[in-house]
């Protein structure tokens, strides 16, 4: 008896030790998360650091969303997993993912920069199972309604059930109850990534038609969901890391000799010590010998510009061998006119997405506004982590400057969850952003 009392007493003591707060109670609201699928492009696929690789997929935005939906009745979320952590990229050229490493530049200066990792690349081949993640790197809106797309895009070949059908025909086969969609980015981004010199912006009519069919096929399955709009490309470090006036002259004698050389070519550009605009080609240039001009504010140099040529060969100023003006090639520059086209198309596409979401009772994730905030001076603060859209130091964007780090994906997943909770009255807990890494330093 005494012993029993003793046990009860000590149990009571132990349980009274900690203060109890009732656990977070997830709730599905009016949605049904039991079979969740995600539709879209590389941002959905888990593409990061310039390649599709295993861990990138594990931390894909939809996979993180799925993990949270599982707290409110969500089922398994199957992705077409790549086994290699070196991954694979098909553009530019077939290669592995980027990592931060030390390399010597053309001046022999050793510095930190993204380099291709060394390891076994993934071999493309069909994974042979049905998937929930329909993220296809490179996919534009109309690709999803194109029959035989599996023959054109090796990433889609990996999980297509038909080599001749269209992606939209796949959705019904998995009987989804819920979807998230992030599609349409490549309809402007592909053009922007090409510096506006090849590829093209999708025609608004085509975009509307394709999005309508994609969304229609999703809704026809009986599923409900949310869709994201398209971020302005100027929120993305791929376009903002190298400033238009990134040509820094350190000495007056250098500026003087550049000014002298330019005057020989009858180019009225004036160079000073400090930052100067790069030189770009311009067919409309009024100058007699060289159709070039200096870049202007609001124009962008792409991150893929050959750094060694900028640093050592005189690209963007004067060729060190021929001493002729050496503009940055078109495909590495977005001019004012190109930026205007991209911005216009982004607005048109976002209008289409916003209207379509409203008309079909699909929740909207305003990714455009969210990335503008991320790209602002203050950035985004989450549980003591300060994130912004700066390359490497910002922590949100991966080493390709376009796709997100695991931590960036966690943030993006939370934007989706915010929209889901708002639209469906659900109570899905946010992803713990602190659990996921940003850029990994050596």
């Amino acid at each position, binding site marked *: 008896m005494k012993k029993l009392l003793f046990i009860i007493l000590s149990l009571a*003591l132990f349980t009274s030790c*900690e*203060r109890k707060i009732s656990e*977070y109670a997830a709730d599905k609201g009016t949605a049904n998360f039991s079979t969740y699928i995600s539709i879209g492009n590389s941002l959905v696929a888990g593409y990061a650091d310039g390649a599709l690789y295993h861990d990138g997929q594990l931390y894909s935005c939809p996979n993180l969303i799925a993990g949270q939906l599982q707290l409110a009745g969500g089922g398994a979320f199957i992705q077409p997993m790549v086994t290699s952590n070196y991954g694979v990229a098909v553009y530019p050229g077939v290669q592995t993912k980027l990592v931060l490493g030390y390399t010597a530049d053309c001046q022999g200066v050793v510095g930190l920069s993204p380099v291709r990792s060394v390891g076994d690349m993934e071999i493309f081949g069909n994974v042979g199972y049905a998937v929930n993640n329909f993220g296809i790197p490179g996919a534009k809106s109309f690709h999803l309604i194109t029959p035989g797309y599996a023959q054109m895009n090796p990433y889609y070949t990996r999980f297509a059930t038909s080599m001749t059908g269209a992606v939209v025909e796949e959705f019904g086969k998995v009987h989804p109850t819920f979807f998230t969609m992030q599609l349409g980015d490549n309809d402007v981004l592909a053009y922007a990534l090409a510096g506006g010199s090849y590829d093209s912006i999708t025609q608004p009519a085509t975009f509307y038609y394709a999005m309508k069919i994609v969304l229609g096929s999703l809704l026809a399955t009986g599923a409900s969901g949310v869709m994201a709009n398209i971020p302005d490309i100027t929120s993305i470090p791929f376009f903002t890391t190298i400033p238009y006036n990134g040509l820094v002259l350190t000495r007056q004698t250098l500026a003087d000799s550049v000014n002298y050389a330019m005057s020989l070519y009858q180019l009225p550009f004036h160079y000073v010590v400090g930052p100067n605009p790069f030189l770009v080609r311009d067919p409309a240039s009024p100058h007699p010998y060289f159709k070039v001009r200096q870049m202007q504010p609001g124009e962008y140099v792409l991150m893929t510009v050959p750094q060694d040529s900028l640093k050592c060969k005189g690209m963007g100023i004067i060729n060190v061998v021929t001493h002729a003006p050496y503009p940055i090639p078109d495909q590495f520059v977005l001019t004012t006119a190109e930026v205007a086209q991209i911005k216009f198309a982004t607005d048109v596409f976002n209008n289409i997405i916003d209207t379509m979401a409203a008309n079909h009772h699909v929740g909207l994730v305003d990714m455009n506004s969210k990335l503008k905030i991320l790209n602002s001076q203050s950035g985004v603060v989450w549980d*003591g982590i300060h994130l912004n859209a700066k390359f490497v130091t910002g922590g949100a964007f991966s080493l390709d400057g376009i796709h997100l780090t695991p931590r960036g994906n966690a943030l993006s997943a939370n934007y989706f969850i915010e929209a889901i909770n708002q639209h469906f009255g659900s109570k899905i*807990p946010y992803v*713990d952003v602190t659990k996921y890494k*940003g850029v990994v*330093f050596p």
Partner: protein
Amino acid sequence: MRRITFLLLLFCFAALTSMGGGYQVGLHSTRNTGMGLIGTSLTYDASSIFYNPGGVSFIKDKWSLSGGVSLIMARVTFQGKDENYQTHLEHQLNTPFYVYASYKATDNLSIGLAVNTPYGNGLSWGDNWQGRFLIQNLKFQAITVQPTISYKFKNIIGVGVGLVWAYGSVNLNKALPLDYTGGEGQLNIKGNTIGFGFNAGVLIHPVKGFNIGIDYRSKINMDVQNANATFTVPAAVRPQFPDSKVEVSLPLPANLDFGLSYEINEKFMIGINLCYVFWKQYDSLVFNFKTKTASLGRTATAALYQNRLIPRIGFQYKVNPTVTVRLGGYYDPSPVPSDYLNPQTPSTNEIGLTAGLSVFPFKGFSIDAAFLYLMGMKRDGTYSPENFAGTYYSAFYIPAIGLSYSF
């Protein structure tokens, strides 16, 4: 049997940490702890040196000595806001102590010395918890030494003043969101300093059994000039985060105490206390790194504490010449605004309930024991500069033990 239960209790509470609004510790006399931490108007023993130097000259005995220690056992639960996350404060040991000695030099003049720990904070949330980029663990303690002089006029008014010399030490760890393969960045700051202040009080004894006490303890600036900041970061960003000297400033806030006590008869005493804490003096925690880089400089972490009034009440009953029992209670409102609630000091409004006991084996000597149960109110808060939100729920179990000897 009884001993085992006691051991179990200790095990359950094996870990002790800081308590109370902000980082002020109210445990300066086991006797007073037993009766709601009142003390400003009391003159029973040498603890008056701390509570009210004006009362020291009213201590009846030639010598009064007392010392003791409290064991603070904190239980704090945190739940992230809108995140499926819960954790508990790790259990660790915090032991504020006190030692006092007073000497009646003449009938009206007394001197005394106090050594105690009026301020401190020690907590550990663990290395991998959600708020690790704000704080992982923290140990901060101020030990004060206070030589005191007290004089009374005609057994009616006593005045006293003490010079406060404080030794403060700080040791804190936090994680940095700088990832490398197999880990993330880490910052340790460790240092110590000394500071000065004063403690002045008046005790009025208008009629027999009735005391009025007023005491002011000044602010003490703890300005650690040369703390060591040690960074563990990926090699690639090391030049941005060199180990450096760092200046850390933390004010120990001033207190204004007002107390009344009345001995209803030989056995029964009742006392109340109003304690006004000038928490507003803690505006921000400043770290000034001496080696400057683009990533390191002077950072001020906003605290924006508010001044607070703590009401207290206590009772004492002398059962017989060898046993005295005490009861008390108080309300300690949190000085921290809800949008600046930082896991470094997870402060909530608290209700304190106390009980105490003194046993006098022979005249003048007592063994004092007390227990304080401090019940925190569940509180939602955000530390806005770091966007760290959640619910905090706390309880503190504080046994105290002490010895007193007067002759």
